[in-house]
């Protein structure tokens, strides 16, 4: 089993006829994703070439509602510029889409504040994220599919490219993945580490986890607290990006007080240590550490 996404998930692409939308639609189709339609206002009734997967091409609709009515789509992925992303997410929500992947970088934080507060029940992955993949089943995102392999390791990551780097290592070490979720690096995101951990916790086919965080925010601390309470003994390895980064611009003082003075590498390392989660110093160590933990837990 995988979480959030499998072979039967019916996926539509918002912005399917744009440059990026077209390109990644082809790649997702090639991966085997069940893309049942796309949306571009004014291009309803046309089709997009679907490679070898879809006979007659992928149908394009004028609105998400039309697409959902015609196809029963449950998932969407957005390839739209940041200034149109809020509208696209609300359109998906309105059409009762269950999970939306927002790849878009540069969506205003205030747009996301309002969206996450007013779209209860819709899972939003991202924004500014590479999407998610259940290897061997389906890929909804912009990730390079060939680095993934089916298996029993779940992965959650705030960084896009670092995810590929880590997964590449896992796959080469023989550790396939159940589902990998790139939750995105923006200040305000939909699904968090904790949301994903909760789903992985009830997935019988995920034996071990990799959590790839970054400095800033308190998502890693919250993840560590969740693991401590709900996943003790689970083989989990974490990584924290940006530990050797120049200090640069730090969080505003007010922000640091509100979040309880967390966000530093030290705070995150301490939180994971308290949860019994080993933190790798570099990506290339992760497969080895994970194998040790899995052997110890005898999974």
């Amino acid at each position, binding site marked *: 089993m995988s979480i959030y996404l499998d072979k039967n998930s019916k996926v539509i692409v918002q912005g399917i006829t744009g440059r990026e939308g077209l390109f990644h639609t082809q790649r997702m189709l090639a991966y085997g994703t069940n893309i049942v339609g796309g949306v571009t206002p004014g291009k309803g009734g046309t089709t997009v070439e679907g490679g070898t997967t879809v006979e007659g091409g992928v149908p394009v609709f004028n609105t998400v509602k039309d697409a959902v009515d015609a196809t029963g789509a449950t998932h969407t992925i957005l390839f739209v510029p940041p200034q149109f992303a809020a509208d696209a997410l609300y359109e998906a929500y309105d059409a009762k889409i269950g999970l939306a992947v927002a790849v878009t970088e540069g969506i205003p934080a205030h747009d996301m504040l*309002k969206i996450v*507060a007013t779209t209860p029940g819709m899972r939003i992955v991202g924004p500014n994220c590479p999407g998610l993949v259940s290897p061997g089943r389906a890929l909804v995102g912009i990730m390079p599919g060939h680095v993934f392999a089916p298996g029993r390791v779940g992965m959650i990551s705030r*960084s896009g*490219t670092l995810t*590929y*780097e880590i997964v590449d290592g896992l796959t080469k070490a023989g550790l396939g993945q159940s589902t990998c979720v790139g939750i995105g690096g923006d200040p305000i995101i939909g699904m968090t580490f904790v949301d994903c951990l909760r789903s992985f916790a009830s997935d019988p086919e995920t034996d071990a986890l990799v959590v790839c965080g970054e400095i800033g925010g308190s998502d890693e601390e919250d993840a560590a607290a969740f693991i401590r309470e709900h996943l003790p003994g689970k083989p989990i390895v974490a990584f924290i990006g940006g530990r050797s980064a120049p200090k640069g611009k730090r969080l*505003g003082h007010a*922000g640091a007080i509100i979040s309880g003075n967390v966000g530093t590498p030290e705070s995150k390392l301490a939180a994971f240590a308290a949860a019994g989660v080993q933190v790798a110093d570099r990506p290339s160590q992760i497969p080895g550490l994970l194998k040790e933990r899995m052997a110890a837990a005898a999974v």
Partner: protein
Amino acid sequence: MKLMEFQGKDLFRRVGIPTPRGAFVRTADEAERFVAANPGSWVLKSQVLMGGRGKAGGIKFADSPAEARALATELIGEILKGVQNPEGERVESLLIEEKVAIASEAYVSITIDRATKKPAIMVTAQGGMDVEEVNERDPDAISKYWVDPAIGYSPFIGRRLAFAAKLPAGFHKAFPSILTGLYKLFMEYGANLVEINPLVLTKDGAVIASDAKVELDDNGLYKHPDLKEWNAQSTSDPDQMAAVAIGLGMSNYAKLDGDIGVIANGAGLGMGTMDAIRNAGGSAANFLDIGGGAQAKLVKDSYKLVTDDPKVKALFINIFGGITRGDQVARGIVEALSGNDLRKVPLVIRLTGTNEKEGRAILAEAGMNPVETMDEGAKMAVEMART
């Protein structure tokens, strides 16, 4: 975008938050003329983005036109240095404001709380000092409220916070409506932070924003073409300006101390690349994140920006394609090196992910052989920089 005090107060006035009388000046002449036309006691405040400008000597008091001229002459052009900005910041302008008789000082701010995904309001009666110090010394003195973004601000929030933070009674009437204005500003202009410290209760009972700290989300600035001019002025950091000039975000390029140039796609991979270089015994000269979906032109421009830094002895380009396509990156590299206009430095390329095969083919045709892993590439770059 961080705003200077005079810009923040401009926004304050737009949303009805009272600010002291005064004038914005760029020269000692203007300062002298203003005080001559408006006799009284005035405060000259250096307009800089750094914190702690008072301690750094950036605030002076003038009671006469001559004094205003002398102090303005002294301040304008001065480099102010603080704990957080040892390199210093040059004073280009002053805000001249009336000296108000302070009865009491409070602190109020609104910021985005990532964890709860809500705007968070903080209030304390201990205004006029560093709120982090207040938080360490006496955290209970700070009252907080998390606003439901679907509902927004309602005046009861201001009333509750004023009572909870034990603001002196003189604040109570004005406070909820000042917070109404501050929340409006926070929302309408898409702020990451709005802060009034101190919010002053004057001896004659007025409540005035004595300082203004506003930081806007760069991603939302397109909604405010009227602030374009401020945006253009808002950084004097040449690295940030160089990044913006080629179409990247301000924080996509940073100069560091080492001798290896780094270009990567994505901040996470960039950080990882620097880690790898350090692990291999080297040190990065700079770091450029080309972001997602980079086209050949941007890759070429990035190559130029990084190699323009004379410290750079070798360059490591580390691409793991997702939305970024290997063929586009490869084409950019080849273009950058094809003419004679750009500096040639020893180059290590690691190219994998989306359109990896096409990219490698383009590079192979130009006689370049990418490496397989990040660690391998880092090691090679360190060796090249040494020779």
